[in-house]
């Protein structure tokens, strides 16, 4: 028998009002927005890779991962790329504008389980956004990891996000940086190739490596297969996925990936769990 009295009564679909306090134009189509609550209540405390449903009343909501430092919820931020109607409107917001916000939702990067391992972070393009929270969290306790490496691939030089962070990480002795560009460009003197072409240099000891990967599906598929082949355990290759979501809380059905709901079983999943479904077209 269902115990109705024990069920929650607050609708998880009810958002809270938040206000944009800072706007940072990362690229021509990517903006980092920093938010504070506009209802006088505490802000959203999130873990690395968790997401929120951010929206504009009258336009709709989209799932976006938080890109700020989880240890500092006062700087709650999302890094958003102009894609559809809602993200385009979000990217164009100014300080003082209102948004709707729900969250945090989903699973987190396994920061503690990765301790004692080489931490290999692999980002493709804007995939760096949900990994930024992992990097800043790891760097705060860098002595707990055998090494911290970032492999960051882009299609265009101009595509770079978190330019200040990248410069700081380059200068940080705890961080090993492996940047690459998909194809040659006169403004780029570094390595050319996909992220997988940097693994010889970045992957130190497959048996004691935990990888955290985010990028387009095709890139994550390639990295998952490549790292598996190189000897990293499937259960130690973590990726964060994106799918269409209308609720973020397991009730709308849209984000299904095989038996998984990306919103509640993910977005962070390991290759042992998610890998088999990557092999199925249009799953």
């Amino acid at each position, binding site marked *: 028998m*269902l115990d*109705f009295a024990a*069920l*929650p*009564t*607050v*609708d*998880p*679909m*009810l*958002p*809270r*009002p938040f*206000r944009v306090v800072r706007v940072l134009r990362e690229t021509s189509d990517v903006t980092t927005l920093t938010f504070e609550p*506009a*209802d006088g209540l505490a802000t959203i405390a999130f873990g690395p890779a968790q997401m929120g449903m951010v929206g504009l*009343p*009258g*336009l*709709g*909501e989209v799932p976006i991962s938080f890109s700020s430092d989880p240890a500092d919820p006062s700087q709650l931020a999302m890094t958003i790329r102009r*894609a*559809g109607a809602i993200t385009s409107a979000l990217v164009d917001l100014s300080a003082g504008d*209102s948004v*709707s916000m729900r969250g945090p939702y989903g699973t987190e990067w396994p920061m503690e389980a990765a301790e004692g391992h080489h931490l290999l972070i692999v980002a493709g393009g804007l995939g760096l956004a949900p990994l930024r929270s992992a990097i800043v969290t790891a760097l705060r306790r860098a002595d707990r990891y055998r090494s911290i490496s970032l492999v960051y691939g882009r299609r265009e030089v101009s595509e770079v996000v978190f330019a200040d962070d990248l410069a700081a990480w380059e200068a940080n002795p705890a961080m090993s940086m492996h940047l690459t560009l998909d194809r040659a460009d006169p403004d780029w003197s570094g390595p050319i190739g996909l992220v997988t072409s940097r693994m010889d240099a970045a992957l130190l000891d497959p048996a004691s490596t935990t990888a955290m990967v985010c990028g*387009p599906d095709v890139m994550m598929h390639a990295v998952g297969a490549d790292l598996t082949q190189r000897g990293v355990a499937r259960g130690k290759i973590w990726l964060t996925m*994106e*799918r*269409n979501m*209308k*609720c973020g*809380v*397991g*009730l*709308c*059905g*849209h984000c*299904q990936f*095989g*038996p998984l*709901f990306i919103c*509640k079983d993910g977005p962070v999943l390991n290759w042992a769990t998610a890998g088999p479904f990557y092999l*199925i*077209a*249009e*799953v």
Partner: protein
Amino acid sequence: MKRAILAPTDLDNLIAVLSERGFEVLGPTLDSGVVTLSSIDSTADLPEGIRDEMSPGRYYIKATSDGELFGYAVGPTSLKPTLFPSRRQVWTTENTDQGIIFRSSVPDLRPVAVIGARPCDAAAMAVQDEALLGGPYIDTDYARRRRDLFLVVVNCTRPASTCFCASMGTGPAVSEGFDIALTELKLDTRHFFVAESGSERGQEVLDQLGLDPADPDDEELVRVALEVAADSMERTLDPVDAYSVLRAQPEHPYWETIVERCLTCANCTMVCPTCFCVTTEPVTSLGDESAGEERRWDSCFSLDYSFMGGSPVRETVESRYRQWLTHKLSTWFDQFGTSGCVGCGRCITWCPVGIDLTEEVRHLREQIDA
């Protein structure tokens, strides 16, 4: 549980008692050529003598003079529209001096009593309970409607050719989740129902009606009628085998044969009593600058459903049909521990081209084994 005999006139009393207890009473009615669920005042509103004949893509109504009140099998309307409305307001905004405020849209709901839900409908409700109330987040609107529901199930003695609840273990007799269960018996000389309660309040209501107890002969008639009904079902589906068939070869060429038939019209998902996918739609008001959000049923057959980053994840027809059937019969077990199918057969009847999931599973099994 003690069983009681309920005469057709007692059924009018049951409707009256439930109304007095504050329920809006819904029951089967003949409307626009189908047996559906509507508000009823008395047994005069019930589809007396109406039979329904179904086959893949076909639904016919036939009038008889036999006087049975629940002689049809199953119309297109499950409990889903009552407990999980096809469209509802979720929230609205209000602009105040302090800024924008979001308010939950919590409608005034009169508790609903349904008379004449089928065992498959009760089973489907249990499936939706798991999906919508299993947590960690729940559908609070469904929870309210569900909490307040008084459910009178009428067991099935005349299943349709599209029914396969017996093989799914969900009928033709209801086993749980009901307040009162009735079995209608129409003999040459007698027309009556055998009633049993499935809850304390169900027993209270039966007690209030002052019914005579059923004698062993009547109970035997019920047992035989339901056994005959179970044996008469032409279609079968083995839920455990379907689970493994659909896992086995998601890229088997057989799926491509679906393209030649499936119109991706989403009818199956609309009539399915367990399909719970929804989308949200923004609502704006020109008048007072308020905005809101509506939620409406959605379907994995639409291209928008999986739209991401400029294109749908599931573009081909076969990928969308495969998603529906695999979720319904296989990954549902992984997610919620049961099949997502209760064997009501509605998706077979209301598919405009008559795709029959029991046949698709059988063909797929044969192809994989071949």
